[in-house]
């Protein structure tokens, strides 16, 4: 663990009151490797360590902590500050219903599954969500959302073979107004941030239905590319929240830090399994513990 690695490096500092430069450099090198192994983006690691160095050199070693514990505490606090801001589990709703929320992201990240999870979550807090299957490309994508939605008693918009995601999203809002659904969750097709045509399409969906939430669904095992993909989606659409999926695996999840640092967008929820119930608000302190290993 990081704490154990730090103990080794700081053995030479026992009895000293301040942390000296050269031992700190060894410690920072160790922390750097730990964060890179955890898939934190190389640039984000650099920025974080600079802040840790500044804080560590400026502090007196607290009487209650060893120098190693001090450095680990500074690192932990930096990561928690970065991840913890913004309110996990908190969604924005429209002053006049329905509240429209888009689920967007790369191929296979878990959007369709998350749409059903979020629908179940909203239903559980007394709302009336409508699921809208706007992925017209992937074979059986609509069927997938219909099946998983049905399995938890959620209504899924039926559309008669419509091939335009913008029209489908619009119809979802019309149906919601007609039948009294107060939230509309739009499942979109996975796409690459470098696919201009598909990114434009998403922009047109956004303009058509004016969502209060645009949630980027990201796989927790994503490596260095997280900064690039999340950054581009944010630039194109203005993301309002992140959902990190597949946290029931053993990926350290450094992508959480990378995405947060690169976009400033809060992580709102996490997926912790394939079942619709396996969905919970994001816990920043738990995530920090997981990243530091």
């Amino acid at each position, binding site marked *: 663990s990081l704490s154990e690695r730090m103990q080794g490096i700081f053995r030479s500092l026992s009895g000293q009151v301040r942390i000296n430069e050269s031992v700190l450099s060894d410690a920072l090198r160790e922390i750097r490797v730990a964060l890179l192994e955890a898939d934190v983006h190389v640039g984000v690691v650099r920025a974080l360590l600079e802040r840790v160095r500044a804080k560590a050199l400026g502090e007196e070693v607290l009487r209650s902590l060893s120098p190693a514990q001090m450095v680990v505490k500074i690192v932990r606090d930096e990561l928690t500050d970065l991840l913890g801001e913004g309110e996990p589990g908190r969604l924005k709703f429209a002053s006049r219903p329905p509240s429209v929320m888009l689920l967007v992201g790369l191929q296979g990240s878990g959007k369709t599954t998350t749409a059903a999870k979020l629908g179940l979550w909203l239903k559980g807090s007394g709302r009336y969500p409508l699921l809208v299957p706007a992925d017209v490309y992937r074979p059986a994508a609509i069927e997938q959302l219909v099946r998983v939605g049905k399995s938890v008693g959620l209504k899924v918009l039926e559309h008669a073979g419509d091939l335009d995601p913008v029209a489908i999203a619009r119809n979802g809002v019309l149906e919601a107004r007609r039948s009294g659904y107060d939230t509309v969750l739009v499942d979109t097709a996975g796409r690459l941030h470098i696919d201009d045509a598909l990114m434009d399409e998403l922009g047109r969906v956004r303009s058509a239905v004016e969502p209060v939430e645009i949630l980027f669904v990201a796989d927790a095992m*994503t490596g*260095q590319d*997280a900064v690039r*993909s999340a950054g581009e989606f944010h630039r194109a659409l203005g993301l309002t929240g992140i959902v990190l999926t*597949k946290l029931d*695996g053993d990926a*350290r999840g450094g992508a959480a830090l990378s995405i947060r640092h690169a976009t400033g967008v809060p992580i709102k929820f996490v997926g912790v399994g*394939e079942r619709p119930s396996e969905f919970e608000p994001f816990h920043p302190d738990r995530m920090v513990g997981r990243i530091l290993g």
Partner: protein
Amino acid sequence: VLGSKAVDEDAIEELEASLLQADLGPALASEVIGRVRERARKDGLDGEGLRGAVREALRAAFPPAGGPPAVGAGPRVSLVVGVNGGGKTTTVAKLAARERLAGRSVILVAADTFRAAAIDQLATWAGRAGVELVKQREGADPSAVVFDALRAARQRKIDTVLVDTAGRLHTKSNLMAELGKMSRVAAREVPGAPHDVLLVVDATTGQNGLSQAQEFTRAAGITGVVLTKLDGTAKGGVALAIHRQLGVPIRYVGVGEGLDDLLDFDPDAYVDGLVG
């Protein structure tokens, strides 16, 4: 004095950053850079020379491509496995299309009996690829589907059987055990099966890819890797780390969502992508 040429540290740092950003991981990146730094001291390499040295070091990790091992009697059986969402179903459809193009008879097996509309998804692909699909109802035992498919394939002298399996996280021991069972059932029906167990790895995957490969190897023995979504901006460096650690070849790369978006692995193109 031998081995004391000046080294362009800025260029070296930049190259290391490229390797890290390509998801090579800190251990492998520092090993490669360390060797290149040694070479730079001896041979006095500059910017382009350094880049070339990194490229050579990475390229050396890949032996010349051997074809897949020959099959005895009975169909060649390939299992396509991996964690959730990596591109298994799409890849198995692409492989089926290739078999058909190569003039071999092929059947697809819908052994993901768990996820919503998984069978429908593969059925659509089978239709598009013009290949036959063996399936049972959702919720059936995946090993039973494999068994039935292999029995039919043997009787009808089918050349190739491609098995799509459910996504599963390698941390779930019951799901990994299920994979082991599928493999044993296949071996009982066709001696030597499964001849290929292809691990599908998403190119955006970070260091967790290593842990995936280790666990899937333990559960079912991986014979090859398919690196998908390489048409994105991720470089798939974890595949090199997997190859280094387990000696498993990267067989194919996925470069899109269409039926013909599958290429044979090209180590030169891949290494160029890593170095940037």
